């Protein structure tokens, strides 16, 4: 480990930043989902970094769980997109507001 862990953490933060902007700014649900994957990966990077730094593979386990959840999330998210698209001729998150309170 010849690069200081801070660098990895900073990289993770930058990736997280990009992901956040993507989720909020884009209106295409697919790209939003992909941005969410970016967020997950940023978090995973931080976890793995600290696992390596402290030689404790709990971080790995956690990252593994995050991957699992990400898979589940992607599956459900894509299913929702597919269903929505079946009803509407286009997919725009601003048009899908059935959850309005």
């Amino acid at each position, binding site marked *: *480990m*010849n*690069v*200081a*862990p*801070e*660098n*990895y*953490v*900073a*990289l*993770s*933060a930058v*990736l*997280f*930043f990009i*992901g*956040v902007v993507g989720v*909020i*700014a*884009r*209106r*295409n649900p*697919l*790209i939003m*989902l*992909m941005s969410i994957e*970016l967020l997950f*990966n940023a978090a995973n*990077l931080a976890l*793995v970094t600290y*696992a*390596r*730094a*402290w*030689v404790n*593979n*709990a971080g*790995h*386990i956690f*990252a*593994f769980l995050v*991957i*699992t*959840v990400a*898979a*589940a*999330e*992607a*599956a459900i998210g*894509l*299913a929702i997109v*597919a*269903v929505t*698209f079946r*009803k509407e*001729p*286009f997919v*725009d998150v*601003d048009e899908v507001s059935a959850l309005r309170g």
Partner: protein
Amino acid sequence: MIAFWILALLMIASAVFTVTARRPVHSVVGLLVNFIALAATYLTLQAEFLAVMQIVVYSGAILILFVFVIALLSSGVRPFDVGPDRMPRILVPAVVFAVLTLAGITVTALHTPVTVLQTTPTNGTTGDAGAFGSVANFGVALFADNLLAFEVTAFILMVAVIGVVLIAGDEGPGGVVRRRPKRVIKREPILKARPPSPELVEGSG
């Protein structure tokens, strides 16, 4: 050292491309590059099993799922975001928050350097059986120490599968789930109040 910087630049660039690409297919390509770079980064952190998982699960499964959906929805023919932008100035707060987050993390990370307890793991280097981050090492941790978490994850996946079947399936296995008729979502009262029987004088008020 150099590998880290190259990978870092590659990841940032691919991430920006993913977020800004006009068409989803391009985004997918960007994301793929990002994931592969991340897997490589994991290797530099001696997380060889996770690196493999990253390739297999993310690149191999999730991204393919994205591609399938894009293909399914014929995104090449019709644009996706066509409606009026209901939150046109959302980018401003988004960037503000994101910058705040970034700054916060950076400041924290730089001002509190991670104390590296052990620069090299004792039980061998990457590639050895049983070394830190290897399959054996990971497996022991997963199935011995964190079995409950593993089980819970399995449960989450199962729920996800059922959820997908319910949401997307025309017909589930065995015809359990049927296509629902299009209907207006109507909120029914939870309790159907029957009219009080006239002879029941409540409280005789």
